[in-house]
């Protein structure tokens, strides 16, 4: 019972967000709260690699792109075929939403597979190599996605296009436009809640401790019987899974376009900043930093072009004043304790 209750709580919380919070705060804040959820999902998942395992991945947006485009293809082209609708139409009722949920999940799984493929060779190496490989992966994804064909907009054209054409018709550098707006507060906060729960349970488990031991001292970790490469690959795959799901949510959110430029290095860097600012290894710290760094720029819209400057300055200040981030390795409910 104690094991199931948190899952029920996450589900209840997501439903509450959808039916009670959404209508009360209005469209503008609903959109911001969805942005916050996606940011939290990204930061909490990257924290599994950068915070728990101590590896430095700066290609998280690349996995987000893999998941987003996979889910997009499934809802846009797959949904059209499945529900016999024009491409990009929202399928009515629960069926459409279930198809969307499945699509984001498949996007996450494909991203996780990409994570293993990228991670297996590079995670054998130590330190900076991973950063370079993940950076390269993110850039390769971005460039590949700019080379795709135009989105097929009409039902007539779609009827004659084979699936092999469809999967590469994702809009190139203009972005995958016309995706149905399935993302709502329920799906966003359901996945985000699941990611937080998974990350926290991981941290408080033997697998999580193995990850932390790799961060602390990889040689000693191996000498204590921990298969360090396996542990790192697991962390990497889990992070990529949730990044892919975040990409699916982002792709189907109102007011965003899924385009390669959006999911480049800058996005990866923003997520890294959230993790570093929140405290490497702190689940709630990452969530808190992601929330702050999403809401504050929204409130300071006029200054939005200075955002990256502020981010960079903030990062320098935090490194000088609190090198371990806002919460360090601890969770928010430990924060009252003196370090």
């Amino acid at each position, binding site marked *: 019972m104690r094991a199931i209750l948190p899952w029920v709580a996450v589900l209840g919380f997501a439903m509450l967000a959808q039916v009670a919070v959404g209508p009360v705060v209005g469209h503008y804040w609903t959109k911001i709260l969805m942005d916050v959820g996606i940011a939290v999902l990204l930061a909490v998942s990257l924290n599994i690699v950068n915070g728990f395992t101590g590896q430095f991945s700066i290609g998280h947006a690349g996995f987000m792109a893999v998941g987003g485009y996979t889910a997009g293809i499934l809802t846009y082209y797959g949904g059209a075929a499945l529900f016999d609708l024009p491409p990009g139409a929202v399928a009515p009722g629960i069926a459409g939403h279930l198809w969307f949920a499945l699509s984001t999940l498949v996007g996450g799984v494909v991203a996780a597979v990409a994570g293993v493929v990228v991670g297996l060779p590079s995670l054998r190496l130590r330190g900076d190599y991973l950063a370079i490989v993940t950076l390269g992966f993110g850039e390769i994804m971005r460039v590949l996605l700019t080379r795709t064909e135009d989105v097929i907009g009409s039902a007539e054209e779609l009827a004659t296009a084979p699936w092999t054409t469809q999967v590469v018709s994702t809009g190139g550098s203009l972005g995958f436009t016309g995706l149905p707006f399935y993302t709502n507060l329920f799906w966003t906060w359901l996945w985000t809640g699941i990611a937080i729960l998974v990350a926290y349970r991981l941290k408080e488990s033997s697998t999580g401790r193995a990850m932390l031991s790799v961060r602390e001292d990889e*040689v000693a970790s191996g000498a*204590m019987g921990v298969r360090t490469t396996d542990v790192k690959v697991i962390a990497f795959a889990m992070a990529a899974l949730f990044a892919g799901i975040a990409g699916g949510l982002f792709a189907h959110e109102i007011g965003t376009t899924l385009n390669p430029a959006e999911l480049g290095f800058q996005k990866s860097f923003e997520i890294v900043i959230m993790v570093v600012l929140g405290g490497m290894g702190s689940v709630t710290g990452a969530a808190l930093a992601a929330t702050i760094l999403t809401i504050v720029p929204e409130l300071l819209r006029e200054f939005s072009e200075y955002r990256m400057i502020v981010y960079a300055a903030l990062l320098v200040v935090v490194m000088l004043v609190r090198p371990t981030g806002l919460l360090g390795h601890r969770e928010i409910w430990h924060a009252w304790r003196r370090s």
Partner: protein
Amino acid sequence: MTPALFARGVSIRFGGLAAVSNFELALPVGGLYGLIGPNGAGKTTLFNLLTGVYRPDQGEIRLGERDLIGSAPSAIAASGLARTFQNIRLFHQLSALDNVRVAQFAHRRTGLVATLLRTPAWRREEEADRAAAEAWLTAVGLEGRGAELARNLPYGDQRRLEIARALALRPKVLLLDEPAAGMNPQEKLGLRSLIRTLRDTYDLSILLIEHDMGLVMDVCEHITVLDHGEVIARGTAAEVQVDPAVVEAYLGSPEAA
């Protein structure tokens, strides 16, 4: 009877330097052997060879019946060869209890899915591991200190924690790399009785590197002396103490003086 740890003809070169050459050892089950030698004699290199950190250029190493050459350090550790480090290598940001529990990971039966779902089987294993980890802390004299961060423990206690962590692997053979280094005389006294107790209580075979001659001569039944990567003497404490080669390695030859 098969020795607990067996090495023959083990050699490794780093460039032109023969760090260890033709090393031999047969550590019997339940044995408490010592490995001494001047600084730079190759003692820690030898530990790194035995535990798979380095792969020997030639030679054979067996743990019981198991051939260790080419196995990863984690596989060697999981199969029953645990070690401590000369320069303490604890997981500093983790609690003492968590340091010990990391070593239990290799023996876990419940997987990732059970971990995330917190199944009853996972919970039972977690409880059992926690109790065992606390017992290991008690065994080395750190009872009730589990919640403290490793980096906040006093030096001597950090050395003890390293031993507790190694024991949690449930090893057959324990390699201790200068466990008394930096300890005060009183801590050394405690360590001496701890090493004996551990061997007797847990059916361990122990190989000890130590610079503190008093400790080595006192607890070890058999001593191997290394100098410049080669075994120059072996035998009981009384035998190696009077061995001219040993005296020369440590004090220099009388002619040169």
